[in-house]
């Protein structure tokens, strides 16, 4: 099994370290040729506009869409979630539009509002620790999307999803890779093994 991390910009090395700790081979992916050689892909944290523009410029968007349509498991954290989504509440930016959600970028506010907290996840007995950095949340969810964790919107008390799954597509608003939490990577690896 070989899992790629999209290495255009962001914390892809931390994701590769997560894979290594699970005994899974991880490789950097910057080109369509490198994409063709992996069984799953991780879109790291970073700046979603930068990652999107470079992916567009280097012809990666359509090949990733094709692989995802064929069932390739894919995980996105933070900027990765934004890139997977079908839209944002703000101006247009390059997105894969494979995950049927609309995200709100910087939903918690600017950097001074960034935080860490313990978060309950559906199907897990213990809460996980989560680091939210200028993080998005999900504003609107399609019917096929399963919500695994939410936070409460202080403005209106509504639940805002921060961990979702749609078949083999996994996404978190926060960064398990920054603190060595491998639970979401384990789900990705399980999806590859099951496929």
């Amino acid at each position, binding site marked *: 099994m070989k899992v790629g991390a999209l290495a255009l910009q962001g914390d892809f090395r931390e994701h590769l370290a997560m894979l290594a700790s699970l005994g899974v081979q991880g490789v950097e992916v910057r080109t369509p040729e490198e994409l063709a050689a992996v069984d799953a892909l991780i879109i790291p944290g970073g700046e979603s506009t930068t990652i999107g523009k470079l992916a567009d410029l280097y012809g990666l968007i359509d090949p990733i869409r094709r692989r995802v349509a064929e069932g390739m498991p894919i995980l996105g954290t933070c900027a990765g979630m934004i890139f997977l989504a079908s839209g944002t509440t703000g101006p247009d930016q390059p997105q894969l539009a494979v995950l049927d959600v609309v995200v709100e970028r910087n939903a918690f506010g600017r950097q001074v509002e960034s935080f*860490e*907290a313990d978060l309950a996840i559906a199907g897990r007995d213990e809460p996980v620790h989560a680091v939210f950095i*200028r993080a998005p949340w999900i504003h609107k969810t399609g019917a096929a999307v399963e919500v695994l964790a939410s936070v409460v919107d202080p403005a209106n008390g509504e639940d805002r999803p921060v961990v979702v799954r749609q078949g083999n597509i996994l996404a978190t608003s926060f960064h398990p890779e920054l603190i060595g939490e491998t639970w979401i990577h384990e789900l990705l690896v399980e999806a590859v093994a099951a496929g």
Partner: protein
Amino acid sequence: MTTANTERGTDLVKRGLAEMLKGGVIMDVVNAEQAKIAEEAGAVSVMALERVPADIRATGGVARMADPAKVREIIDAVSIPVMAKSRIGHFVEAQVLQSLGVDYIDESEVLTPVDDNHIDKWNFTVPFVCGAKDLGEAVRRIGEGAAMIRTKGEPGTGNVVEAVKHMRLMNKQIRELAVMDENELMGAAKELRAPYHLLREIAETGKLPVVNFAAGGIATPADAALMMQLGCDGVFVGSGIFKSGDPSERARAIVEATTFYQDAAKVAKVSAGLGEAMVGINIDTLAPADRMQDRGL
């Protein structure tokens, strides 16, 4: 489902934002229009300034924090994080910038220092980046609470020689630390004039505990790729973009060269036909008082 034990402004949250900027380019901008050009070109962040370092150098006088109206204008223009510079030791400028909602403060030698002491950065929720010429400076800044380090280079010169010197020295000093025994580590703390506990951590891990970017004199895509190959986590480009012939094209080319820094054919492709780079300055011709890197040790 909900969250518990929420904490803001922790080390992890501050250093974490810098982790997200890795492999990216942070560009100096002086207005909303330049900020939009930078974002469109793929910058991971912009640095809001009154004047770019080359102009500060040319104008002389006291260089201060940018006008808050200008910082706000830039914050409102882009969705990427916005940084701004405070003078070294000017903790009130830093308080003002934090209140404006900037995402990172650069306590910068490009502005005129006000104190031999740096800002106590632990006191802030917003993270700080600081410049360093060697490991001692880097570790002193981290000891004061900096969540990100950059080389000082020699700002506003379009000459990358000093940034190269600083990065090479830091790498060498980290390598030397990694092979020291316990007895030698305290000696290193004395020599580097840096906190022992941080040096010990660096000796164990073989790297700084925070992200380290290149800054000071980067003017071309090849300069950016050079600094990346020397082990920097990303690059700041100050005057190099908006003092060049075609800022938009050059900005895009530097972004691409930073991603594909190991691919010489791609660096060649993005460098072709870029037009004029900013006019450079030979470091030897600078008077000692004009060397910004010697401020704030």
